[in-house]
């Protein structure tokens, strides 16, 4: 069933395969995924950087495309395209007092909704969700709207984020800093 995880590239990782099985709302697996996405949102909003990093698989890929949703990151520029070591660097800087774009820190609230999920295998899940993210910083308020795709992998101690793709619908428009977690 599905493509073996090792063969899946950075693009197909976030595309639902035809033979994936839908995970129905109300099922215990759906509730577990939903709880993970809500928990992740809360950790990002509260700048709980280490706890957020703790949700990631060590082979993780964090991808925020630019200029659209379906670009090829090998040929086109992204806003963020980071493997786990670079995600770790991002967290290192977010905790550094000299990261000026987060001094003062953004105040964040996000609403996560419209969750759909499918399984490519017993330990291999793809979840889509939409979000509205409000940011207030230095008397400026901005709203960001987007869709997230999470590739989740079941490890001995629970689900881990193997890949996260965040499509901001304004990603081809002039943007202010988005240096908080997306």
């Amino acid at each position, binding site marked *: 069933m599905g493509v073996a995880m090792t063969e899946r590239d950075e693009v197909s990782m976030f595309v639902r395969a035809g033979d994936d099985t839908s995970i129905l709302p109300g099922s215990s697996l759906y509730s577990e995924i939903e709880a993970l996405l809500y928990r992740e949102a809360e950790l990002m909003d509260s700048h709980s950087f280490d706890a957020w990093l703790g949700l990631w698989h060590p082979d993780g890929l964090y991808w925020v495309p*630019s200029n659209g949703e379906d670009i090829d990151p090998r*040929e086109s*520029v992204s806003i963020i395209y*980071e493997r786990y070591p670079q995600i770790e*660097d991002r967290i*290192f800087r977010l905790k550094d007092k*000299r990261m000026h*774009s987060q001094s003062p820190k953004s105040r964040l609230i996000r609403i996560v909704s419209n969750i759909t999920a499918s399984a490519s295998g017993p330990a291999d899940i793809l979840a889509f969700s939409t979000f509205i993210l409000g940011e207030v910083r230095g008397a400026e308020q901005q709203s960001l709207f987007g869709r997230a795709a999470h590739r989740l992998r079941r490890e001995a101690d629970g689900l881990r984020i193997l890949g996260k793709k965040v499509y901001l619908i304004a990603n081809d428009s002039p*943007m202010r*800093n988005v240096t908080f977690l997306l």
Partner: protein
Amino acid sequence: MPTEHQISPVRPASADVAAMERAAPPGPHRVPDRLDVARSRYDAAGLRSLVAPGWVHSAVYTDPRIFELELERIFHKGWVYIGHESEIAKSGEFRRRQMGRQPVIFVRGQDGEVRVFLNRCRHRGAIVCEVDEGRDSYFRCWYHGWTYSNSGELVSVSGPDGYGPSFDARENGLTPVPRVASYRGFVFATLDDAVPPLEHYLGGAAKVIDILVDSAPRGELLVRSGSNRTIYKGNWKQVGMDGYHPLFVHASVLATWERHSDSGHSLGATHSANPFNFDGVSETRDFGNGHTMLDFLKHRLNHSGKFRSILENTPGGADYIEALYAEHEESWADVLLAMAGDPHVGIFPNLQLINNQIRIVNPISVDETEVVMFPVLFANVSPEINALRLRQHESFYGPAGSGSTDDAEIFERVQKGLGASIDPWINISRGMNRERVEADGTIVGHISDEVPQRGQLKQWLTMMVGRPEFEEG
């Protein structure tokens, strides 16, 4: 020293101004007297009063009247960068661009010619190109259906009988900008036909653009990888060339580079060993006409092994190095490799070539600026080398990058600070005591010196007063 540096032509009847007129001329280590510009008129003498050796008045960055003059005298008059030819490699491909307040279309016609047109229907003025980029045979105004070819001709008017026989379609094509010129694929345009040729304007900066072009095998750049569009609340001239700020603005990034000093996926790879140190050998350059450079060559020649080894560990990297040495003299190939194809140059007023990107600066208002960053890939190299160029770019630039976001934050802090206009002077004197002039007139300073700031301001004043008569000191 000319006294008009301090004297505004329209003199508000205030004691401050009277005191100012009596004051000694300012020098780099003496703060000029306060100058209240609230009621001054910006004729040539008034504009000159905003600039003194080593100093610039904050009104240059905060006064909306100055901003309007800048649009008229700099962006609507001089050479402005439009785009790279590879962006519109195929006939019919187009990009929307901006020249100051003028919306323009950068397009390659069916005949293969690259043109720049005002994005404005000749009938009632609507834009005829409503998407940022694309490829089409025609631009159609959907207000009343006037249709233009991608070479600009008016090819159809709806209901032509309503205009009678004297209507000449040939006189109603899209309005071309008066002049378009290209330097090695970099296309510039001007709205004033009276400016000197582009090569004269670029002057010594042209050979620095070569660093990027020659770093691509066969000189073929690919600017077709999208862009990061960012915006900050600050004046457009804040995006300068500054080698004094990284130790402070980018302190958190430098700390990250120290954690993973051999990571190819960061710009730390090309900035190996801090090039910004006060006792380092990196330089600043002012080529004239406002074109300035952070010149890391001497530093990077001492550390070129690191970038070479990153390339050698990237598929296609060894072939790439071989191609550079096959195409160029050994000494120039050494330079290209050491510089990692990074000119780090600013071409006044709206173009920067920094690391792996072309950057366009679009002034929106006196305190708002858009910066569009286009990563540059190379034709004729492996996909892995191009992916590396993208990943290096994203690590530092763009709206979530580690570097340009901190720059934008500091620019906004500056704009807020300049609101304290009671004490209006900005100090840009650093390095005036040690800069030197090379045989071709290029002014050279230490990496941390404000040679670029002074060079850009000199050109700013030249264009604002309309003649090259500004002299420092």
